[in-house]
């Protein structure tokens, strides 16, 4: 079978000592980044983007992917032992996991999180292995109109569906699109919004925006508002699951994998929705509902953690096959590909097939590495939580500097970095989502090019977007995503009124 051969070839590439070293390094950094509060996978990958200048593409993509899913493993450790989620996907884990840790079962919670992540990550990787080539084969047939609408769908979901306010989500998206406009227009070659500054003709680096919003913004927010917040740390216990805990965990892992995976594949961004869905499912199906929210139910950790990892792995499908990022981190991974002059999309499986398959193979290897790193060695990671906050955040600022300065060697960028950090503080304080900014600035120029190409095909007529069945269907999905939640809310409100009246 063709896929088998290519996958084997991928393993051959991924298992060379140098690539194994990069995968391992990625997993270690990823886990550390996941464990440490105040820094997430998106910003870690962004800070390390300068390495794309020197390291060859396969090695650095393996490295970045290791950071990406390593952070998901590490994030659960923090959310179980502290009450602050290490990254947003482990918010739900923090609820039950922290309860379990408080009643002396931190070890079991950590074990089910790590093994669940492994099970879900591995199953999801198998699914990626078989689905991605099929989707890529199909996606070759998509033309600019369909691509533009797919990107429109990604914009809609990331700004209007996630988060509490559509208005603030859209504002963030358009700020991102505005940033993406700066630089040379891809089609006409004209400079836009450069104000005569030569540095701006290349556009604004995604590193600058991501590191500014997430690292510097986070540090400034912490010093401004959270200086006196004290985190209590739960006591560790032996990392071990009883037979009964195993029996309660594995159905939750499997269910959650199949909840999480589809959410990752569609451009619906983020892992918040599937983790919450999995939590709700487990709560409903559990034979021990009394443990939820009181002493902590193991299903409530096993499910969401597995759903999180399945969704994260599945986000590689839209990234690799369509070139559409659906989260902060995948947006920055797309930036990494672009640094090499590689444009992810359906052709990627032909033009860079060695890279893609090595990357997929490295996911299998990385999951095993992470299981080892996170189960027997969890005690080491817990020590990271002992780093005092001042030193931790001040250290993050050094890494922020090296990431941003290393990219373009411009001290002016460091001033911009501070300004974007301030923007990050305002956005965080007033509940503006940040993912739309990053996705908007990366995907905006691509979407614009597709739109103008589509209109050229249609000789300037907008009807080109409704002339093909696939594009009509996509337009329908965009409208549904925008309208259905609102209609649902309206309907619920009316029913409430009827009941009360």
């Amino acid at each position, binding site marked *: 079978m063709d896929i088998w051969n290519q996958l084997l070839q991928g393993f051959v590439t991924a298992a060379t000592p140098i690539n194994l070293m990069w995968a391992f390094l990625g997993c270690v950094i990823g886990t550390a980044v996941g464990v440490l509060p105040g820094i997430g996978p998106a910003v870690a990958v962004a800070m390390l983007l300068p390495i794309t200048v020197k390291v060859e593409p396969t090695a650095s993509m393996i490295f970045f992917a290791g950071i990406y899913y390593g952070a998901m493993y590490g994030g659960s450790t923090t959310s179980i032992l502290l009450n602050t989620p290490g990254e947003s996907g482990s918010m739900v884990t923090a609820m039950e996991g922290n309860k379990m840790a408080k009643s002396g079962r931190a070890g079991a919670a950590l074990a089910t999180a790590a093994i669940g992540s492994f099970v879900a990550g591995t199953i999801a990787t198998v699914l990626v292995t078989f689905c991605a080539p099929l989707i890529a084969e199909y996606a070759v047939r998509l033309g600019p109109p369909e691509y533009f609408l797919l990107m429109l769908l990604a914009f809609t979901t990331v700004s209007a569906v996630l988060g509490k306010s559509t208005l603030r989500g859209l504002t963030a998206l*358009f700020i991102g*699109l505005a940033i993406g406009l700066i630089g040379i227009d891809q089609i006409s070659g004209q400079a836009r*919004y450069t104000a005569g500054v030569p540095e701006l003709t290349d556009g604004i680096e995604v590193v600058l925006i991501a590191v500014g919003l997430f690292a510097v913004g986070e540090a400034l927010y912490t*010093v401004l*508002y959270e200086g006196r917040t004290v985190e209590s740390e739960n006591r560790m216990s032996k990392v071990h699951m009883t037979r009964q805990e195993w029996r309660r965990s594995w159905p939750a892992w499997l269910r959650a994998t199949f909840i999480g995976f589809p959410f990752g594949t569609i451009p619906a961004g983020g892992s918040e929705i599937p983790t919450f869905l999995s939590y709700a499912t487990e709560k409903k199906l559990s034979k021990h509902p009394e443990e939820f929210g009181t002493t902590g139910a193991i299903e409530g950790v096993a499910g969401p953690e597995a759903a999180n990892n399945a969704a994260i792995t599945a986000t590689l499908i839209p990234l690799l096959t369509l070139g559409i990022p659906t989260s902060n981190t995948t947006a920055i991974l797309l930036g990494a590909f672009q640094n090499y002059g590689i444009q992810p999309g359906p052709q990627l499986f032909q033009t860079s097939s060695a890279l893609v398959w090595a990357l997929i193979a490295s996911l299998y290897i990385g999951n095993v590495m992470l299981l080892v790193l996170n189960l027997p060695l969890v005690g080491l990671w817990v020590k990271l939580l002992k780093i005092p906050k*001042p030193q931790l955040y001040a250290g993050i600022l050094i890494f922020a500097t090296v990431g941003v300065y290393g990219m373009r060697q411009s*001290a002016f960028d*460091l001033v911009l970095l501070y300004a974007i950090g301030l923007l990050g503080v305002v956005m965080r304080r007033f509940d503006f989502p940040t993912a739309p900014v990053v996705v908007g600035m990366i995907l905006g120029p691509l979407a614009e090019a597709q739109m103008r190409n589509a209109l050229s095909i249609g000789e300037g007529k907008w009807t080109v977007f409704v002339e093909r069945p696939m594009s009509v269907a996509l337009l329908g999905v965009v409208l549904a995503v925008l309208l259905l939640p609102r209609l649902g809310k309206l309907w619920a409100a009316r029913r409430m009124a009827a009941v009360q009246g």
Partner: protein
Amino acid sequence: MSQHPESRTPQTLIGAGALAASGLLAAGALVISSEAGYSGVGPNFLPWVVAAALLVCGGWILWEARSGGFRNMEEPSGAARGDWRGFAWVSVALLANAALITTIGFILSCTLCFVLAVQGFRSAAGVSNRGTTTWALDVFTGAAISAPVYWMFTQLLAINLPGLTGSGWL
């Protein structure tokens, strides 16, 4: 949702900021050519769309701010009032770093940034610095982070970072 009266001004400012961004984009869009070719829309099309969208969003934000505050707001985490003294330390740390990095080199500049920032976070936590040993320890920690990072980038990855000397070691 009831609004904290003190968040009315900042919320209004955010709306005004979005409107200002829209105005800037529109002003910039005026000088972008509209030469459209076959597609009927030129390089100035998206700039106008984004400017218009930000005009609508900014206006809407302004309206929300003036009529009871942002809707569906997640309560922000942390203290109600900002610790501006700590914030000033960290701001100075970052800006000093930007100003000095090309003259005194990456290691020294980042160490300074580290020391100042740590100071800010301590002050925000309400801990005062306990004399010269703490300062010395901070300087040491800062250097112990920035020096290996510097060497890794300049020696291993051969990425240019500014040094005090041309040796690539300091």
